[in-house]
């Protein structure tokens, strides 16, 4: 972390080395909590964190637009299965990536949302409905966060993702880290616990070393 004064403003950035070591630290905590985060190596050799999370909303937010062909005969019907989604509940798959932004020297959150069984990601408008839902209990204003959302290709897989643009991260982190009063501060964890909830990332208290 760097604290350097630029025209009276504190700049709070994170070097890649710091990001990498904090990501490792984060992943260890995640592993001990079975929280599903994995550390992966991107094609440029840089690390990023990755997690898939399944979520079944209490009510049907988006009816699944079936996009498929006619029934085909493949022999007998399997009478010994009970489909899990026969009650009409749709499960959604959230893919999260935490990558390092070289230009802004901060972590950046990339994500996509899918209906279970559908490969095409939801549109931003559909995702927004979720974020309203997620943000509400925290008094978070989805609009504030979404003002920084953009579309970017995943640095490793090249697949388009939604990304929270890192242009405001430094300012937010300066505010946050200064207001924390415990010794051991993990930039990555502080940041993710601030922006994560609105996209459905819940973080256990055990992530916070001071608690």
């Amino acid at each position: 972390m760097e604290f350097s004064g630029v025209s009276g403003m504190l700049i709070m950035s994170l070097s890649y080395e710091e990001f990498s070591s904090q990501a490792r630290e984060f992943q260890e905590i995640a592993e001990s909590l079975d929280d599903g985060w994995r550390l992966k190596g991107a094609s440029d050799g840089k690390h990023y964190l990755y997690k898939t999370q399944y979520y079944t909303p209490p009510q049907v937010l988006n009816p699944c637009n079936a996009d498929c062909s006619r029934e085909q005969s493949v022999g007998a019907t399997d009478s010994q299965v009970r489909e899990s989604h026969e009650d009409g509940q749709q499960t959604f798959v959230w893919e999260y990536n935490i990558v390092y932004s070289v230009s802004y020297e901060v972590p950046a959150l990339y994500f996509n949302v899918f209906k279970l069984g559908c490969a095409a990601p939801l549109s931003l408008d559909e995702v927004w409905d979720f974020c309203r839902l997620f943000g509400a209990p925290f008094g978070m204003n989805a609009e504030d966060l979404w003002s920084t959302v953009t579309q970017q290709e995943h640095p490793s897989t090249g697949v388009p993702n939604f990304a929270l643009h890192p242009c405001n991260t430094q300012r937010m982190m300066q505010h946050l880290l200064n207001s924390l009063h415990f010794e051991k501060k993990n930039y990555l964890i502080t940041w993710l616990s601030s922006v994560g909830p609105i996209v459905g990332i819940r973080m256990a208290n055990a992530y916070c070393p001071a608690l």
Partner: protein
Amino acid sequence: MSVPESTEAPMEPFRYTPFSSQIDLHFWHKLSDKKLHELKLCEDPVEFHAEYEVNLNIKDAVACVSYDSFDVSAGNSRVYRLAGKLLNKNSIETFKNCDKKNLLETSMNEIIANIKSGAALEDPNLLNRILLLSYADMKKYFFYYWCAFPSAMLNDTQHQLGSVIPVSDRLSDQNRERLAKNVGNLPFALINKTTFERCPVSKMKDDISGTHYIVFADPSSSETNAGWPLRNFLLMTAYHMPNETSDFEVIALRGTPRTFFEKSKIFSVRLLKVTFEEPGWIYVGYERNEKGQYGPRLANLSHCFDPLVLAQNAVDLNLKLMKWRLAPDLKLKQISEMKCLLLGAGTLGCNVARCLLGWGVKQITFLDNGKVSLSNPARQSLFKFADTHNGGRPKAEAAAAALKDIHPGLNVQYTDLKIPMPGHAVSANDVEPVREAVEKLEKLIEEHDAVFLLLDTREARWLPTMLGARHDKMVLNAALGFDSFLAMRHGTLKNKLGCYFCNDIVGPMNSTKDRTLDQQCTVTRPGVSFMAASFLTELFATLVQHEHGNDALPDNAFNDDADELDRNERDSPNNVLGLAPHQIRMFLSRLHFMTPNTQRFSMCTACSPSVLSEYGNSGFEFLLRAFNEPDFLEELTGLKEMQRMVDDMDVLALGDSDNDLSP
């Protein structure tokens, strides 16, 4: 030590939760790549794998296929693997017509062979396979696919469910810890009921029904069903067990190793011995699609992979940012759906088109009859030097092509057409071409929502002004002076604002300082056209967003007819994009900027009722007279009469001296 509960309880049919395949974007991305660079036209099966977990906390049992699914080495201790074969077909026909039943049977027969030979006792991973049949339409980015998890049905007498109980009813935390430790990462295990030691799976050839638990990693979280992987394991057990019938207790591992699979269930099951020689075995395992039918699925990934769609999305997203960040009430669709007709593809036409692109407008039509000349590319932002070759490419065509290069997703049309003008006499030979030109122009105006007058002469604006008024279109007009510009919208019957010609003839409100700007003058300071084009486009956007649209009154509307105007309808600063002035005039040399409003003029040569009704009655004949007879329009509208009155007044005023009246 048998199982008293399960033997006493009534038996029920045993049921499974099938896998739900989750084949993600990354996998299809990878497959496209593999198809293009590696597989090409080869249809041979490709090894890959899916993964499943036992701690998803959702009802579905997910078999996940992702970007490392082709990577044999990739692995993770928390997930279990389903090995399998990908059969990627080269055409939709071979995908549709391939014998799916046979595929399933072949795969299941291999599994049965592995059960019989004992290979699956040594490696129970051989029991569960995934088949993925696919066809990748790389042009449309459509992926057709169908997954199968081969199995064979034990009928309801061959296996029956006794009871399902939570693991905590039977095992203490301590024993669960020992269980979790001894099972480790294995998908299947036989665990001693008292010591919790693990024994080789092959020990099922002995009677272990009372002494051992069958343990398996269960991707399902159902209260009543076991997960799919157990199915073939029970088949194997039914084949190898020594007795004709046995009762087993199966621990379905659910939850996490850290909490010693606290959500696990114990299923008691009664199995009848099988030999696979029995008649009537039914093979199953194809996944149902979203409709709940046995059929393939289609993943339409054009909006993820098609660069055209991606570009369109990126443009739209950029605009949405503006909506979210600054103007939440912005109705972007209203703007992007406007069909815009650009009359003139010169400096103004090029620049207006680029501004409209920025607003996400998707349908633009250029009309011009010029060719790109050597001096054009430097100022006219859509043209290049190459467009000037061979006598010059038609401007409308070149501009449309350039726009298409910038944003291929656009619907861009062009028409090479000369707009007939008053004062430009039509010879007898030209009557038909001119009639066609008029019809074409009128049709274009009818088909579009907004007409931009970006022409270089005053008289060329007359016909489209008249037609725009006749069809009640949004007409936006820009004209350039050397260091000044006018950007204006034409009025409507409702807002009573003037058109270009109303204003021109009576002059703008501040007529002493501000003369008309165009006067055929295309010699302008280079930046002026950019300014005019951007002011005009923003005026267009403001107007489209305005609650009264084209009828909007400017904020500083004249008050002469205050009684007739509903004051509440006046523009308020709360409009999404702010004020919608009638005219914007700028004088660069003085950095002077004004937004005058002028009224509709009852004797206007372009939009007055007499002109419109005369065109309605006589149509093209009227136009011919307007084109051919210099004073026709003035006479028709009464302007001439007014001018004569003015002249008479001059005569009276000057009447004192006869000398002054001599020619």
